[in-house]
Structure formats: C-alpha cells, structure tokens
C-alpha cells in the first residue's frame, strides 16, 4: 500500500479566487485559470469574460504539461532546448512548449500533486498570476 496526496475542491476554489482578485486588481486582460491534479485531470477552471477560445485551451494545456512533466514550464522548455528536443517528441498532443504560465504544484516534501495553467496575458503576467495560485494551493 502507498499514499496519494490529493488537491481538494476548497483549496482549488480559494486559488481561483486569489488569482481572479489579482487579475482584476491589476486590470490585466481576461485570463483563463486552470488547476489540474497529478494526472493532468481537470480540478478547477475559471474563464474570465472575453477570454478567447485559444486562451482557454492553452491554459488547460499549460497546467497539464506542468503536472505531467513535474516541472514549471520555464524549466521544461529549457530542458527541451538543452537536449535539442521538441515537445512533439513526446507524442502527446496536450503537451505544450510554452515557457511561462504553467507551474507544477508540489507538497512540502516535493511530491507532485498538480499543475496551474494561466493564459491570456503576457508571459510574465501569466507566470505572476500562476504563482498566486501555487502560493494558495501550497499554503505559502
């Protein structure tokens, strides 16, 4: 037997609320905010009014990529580049090679429990909002 740590709905709603509050306080463009579990399965999603269809899908794929690869997208993208590989080598259509706006969620012990994906702003804005989600989910 072994244990599996799971994100819960209350934490996910709090993370969405925190991220939304920050987007609104800074008057950033409408964003899509996505939280997935360690399998890359959807745990929570909020699409702000006016989000484009591309942005909605991209945020979901960023969260999926961070969770599945167990890495923040910046690190994953750097790793691909160093290895001279492409994200398409993994033959998984849901993986993206973006380098911002996707962060892995880990427990204090370093266990991967999910991913946060944000899209709609500049890469820097996406990353900053995703960090707020991570902080809420990890109690930071």
């Amino acid at each position: 037997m072994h244990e599996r740590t799971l994100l819960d709905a209350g934490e996910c709603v709090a993370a969405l609320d925190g991220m939304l509050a920050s987007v609104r306080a800074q008057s950033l463009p409408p964003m899509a905010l996505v939280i997935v579990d360690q399998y890359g399965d959807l745990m929570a999603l909020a699409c702000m009014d006016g989000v484009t269809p591309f942005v909605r899908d991209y945020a979901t794929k960023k969260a999926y990529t961070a969770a599945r690869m167990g890495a923040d997208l910046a690190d994953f993208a750097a790793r691909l580049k160093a290895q001279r590989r492409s994200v398409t080598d993994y033959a998984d259509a849901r993986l993206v090679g973006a380098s911002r706006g996707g962060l892995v969620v880990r427990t204090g012990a370093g266990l991967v429990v999910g991913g946060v994906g944000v899209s709609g702003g500049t890469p820097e804005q996406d990353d900053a909002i995703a960090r707020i989600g991570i902080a809420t989910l990890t109690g930071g």
Partner: protein
Amino acid sequence: MQVRQVLGLDEAMLAVKAILAENKASPGRPIAVAIMDDHCDLVAFVCEAGVNPALARQNALRKAYTSASMRVDTMAFADRFDGLKRTIADSGNLNFTSGGGGLVLKNSEGLILGGIGVSGRPDGAEDEALAQAGLRALRAAGVVA
C-alpha cells in the same frame, strides 16, 4: 451584426459555490461541477478530491453540454425520445447523456444562457438536487427565470 447576452464568470462562480455549499450540507460521494455557456464552452469547473476518474468529470461536462446544446434538463432529455423509433445513441453525439444532474439555464425571455452539470453521486436524482442549488442561486440573482 447581432449582440447576444452571454453567461459570465461571475454568474458561473456563483452557481459553482452554491452547489459546493449544498454538497457540504448533504455530504456523499465526491462530485464534479461544470458550468457552460450557450456555446457549450466551459466557464467554471470544480472537482472534489477522489471523484470517480472514469465517470464524474466527463459526466459533469456531458450533462452541462447536453443541457446547454439541447435546451433541456438531462432528466427530461430521455423523454424526448418516447414514442420515436430512435434512441439518444441515434443522434450520433457521444457527449449526449440522459443522466440526471444537467440543468438548462434560461433567462426570463427564454434565451439559453448555458447549462449546469453535476456528477459523482450514485444516483442521478442526487446530482440533480445539487445542481438545483446552482439554479436557485442564479434565480435569486435575477440571472435565470
């Protein structure tokens, strides 16, 4: 050109939170909650830890999708086929479901705003009872009729 009123994130989150509160008041198997707009695009979604991975997420999405696209509560969707020599499967759309827990969102003028989908409980009637909490919240806010 035309301009259409569309369900927004504020309304979707209001429904999600009302359903989660109702869920807390009558605990049971973990659920997934999906709110879609009239285009069947997901506006808000929340899933509880430990949901049945094979069923709850997909079914919450299918219920919201069926309600929003077919303009019907999913419990009543099967009735549409009564007396017809065909079944839901004949529609050829694998995202249609007649499982209880999908509710159509309509404003006072009959405009379709989208759908709610709840899944996870052992019985569709239980899913629907939770979904109703979302509808009540939207009705209280004057969003739906």
